[in-house]
């Protein structure tokens, strides 16, 4: 072997020192074994190699880079051959940090894709290839004991979200879940969550429709609006409560809120409004009384109240 670099550690913490040695075997006939072994860090010659002859006649040079400030660097073992500097071996040094603790882990149950979708913040870049895995396990109580593990959910490269398909979930059983971050310098775990998947259901908003003409039994009163909505089909099996908000299209008007619109009736009469005014209406719903997340606000519907 005409030049082989050995490293204390190919991956180190940024700023730490790294020691390397390069050995030129004595059977390396075409080399003048007396010449000095030189080191290059990236494309700069790096002084400070300590060279000695080994018992078997081969030459060994050792070098220590006190503070490696490159996240990636090529370290080359070289020799002059005639007047041209020859590279005999080269290794790639990598430096960075252990993985930061992933935080802000949050999940919600998506009934459209029938999967539990979790997302998290990866934290600052550790400059090293870092694998994130969403780990989870089934559980009977409050996730104190770790029972049967569910699958390891591996996100797409560079993504900080992962989705666990329905077939791995028991929707009405509690499960523990956390994110594990791992690279060459260590492993960290996020805070653990414990929930029934169904308690994290996020509904899609209902679809608002004008009731034109307003139903026979209640002709349009001045300052009143009749509203009808179609609930989101996949969520029909869930008892919900809904909220309606409305604002006149007048300058800086703020939203007014009608809390807990009875969700079963699918229509609602809104009164006490300004006559001959255009109102923007939106609605959202949430699983209730069982826990869940509010849906987003529905797309707006604009209705006009009649003249006085």
């Amino acid at each position, binding site marked *: 072997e*005409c030049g082989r670099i050995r490293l204390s550690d190919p991956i180190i913490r940024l700023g730490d020192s790294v020691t390397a040695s390069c050995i030129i075997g004595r059977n390396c006939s*075409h080399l003048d074994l007396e010449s000095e072994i030189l080191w290059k860090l990236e494309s700069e010659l790096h002084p400070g190699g300590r060279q000695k002859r080994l018992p078997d006649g081969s030459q060994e040079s050792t070098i220590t880079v006190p503070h490696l400030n490159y996240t990636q660097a*090529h370290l080359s073992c070289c020799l002059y*051959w005639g007047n*041209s500097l*020859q590279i*005999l*071996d080269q290794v790639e040094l990598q430096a960075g940090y252990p993985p930061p603790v992933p935080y802000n882990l949050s999940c919600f149950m998506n009934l459209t894709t029938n999967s539990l979708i979790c997302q998290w913040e990866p934290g600052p870049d550790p400059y090293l290839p870092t694998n994130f895995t969403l780990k989870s396990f089934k559980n009977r109580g409050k996730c104190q004991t770790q029972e049967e593990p569910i699958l390891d959910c591996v996100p797409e490269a560079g993504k900080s979200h992962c989705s666990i398909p329905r077939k791995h979930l028991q929707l009405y059983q509690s499960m523990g879940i956390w994110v594990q971050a791992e690279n060459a310098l260590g492993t960290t775990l996020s805070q653990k969550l414990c929930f029934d998947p169904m308690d994290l259901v996020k509904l899609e908003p209902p679809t608002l429709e004008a009731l034109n003409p307003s139903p026979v039994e209640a002709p349009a009163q001045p300052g009143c609006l009749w509203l009808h909505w179609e609930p989101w089909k996949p969520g029909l099996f869930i008892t919900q409560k809904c909220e309606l908000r409305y604002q006149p299209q007048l300058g800086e008007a703020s939203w007014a809120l009608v809390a807990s619109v009875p969700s079963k009736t699918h229509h609602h009469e809104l009164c006490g409004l300004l006559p001959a005014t255009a109102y923007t209406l939106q609605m959202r719903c949430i699983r209730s009384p069982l826990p869940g997340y509010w849906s987003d606000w529905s797309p707006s519907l604009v209705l006009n109240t009649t003249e006085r």
Partner: protein
Amino acid sequence: PLGPASSLPPSFLLKCLEQVRKIQAEGEVLQERLCAAHKLCHPEELVLLGHSLGISQAPLGSCFSQALELVNCLRQLHSGLFLYQGLLQALAGISPEVAPTLDWLQLDIADFATNVWQQMEDMRVAPPGHPTQGPMPTFTSAFQRRAGGVLVASNLQRFLEPVYRVLRYLAQT
């Protein structure tokens, strides 16, 4: 001595010229990628390593002797291409950044070698039996494969320049 240059069909020569240019372009991409990804940009820094790895250059003498020996020149061209096919194959697993370019280059060289071999067969001057690959260098580290890639790519470019000149000469006569 040179058989009548016209014994080579013009379309064969035009295709060969195009294939050489295609391989040269691919070879440059390989060199650029090795330089960008691994900071190995100067083959002259790796001559010593090349000796110890046994990366040789393909002979093309018959294409340059005063009297161009067409048949021997075709045979040397084919063996050179065959050698580079082997050398590139030995570089398999070089690195993800470079592997696709290496694959295209291998395919283009194999195509060109097939073209030359079939032309020799059509002219009934193909050597008997199919060529067998000699001993190939063994690369024992990622660095040696990448350095080998730099050396093979630069040797290939230095092999193709004279080939292009000879083909152009034949196409013009």
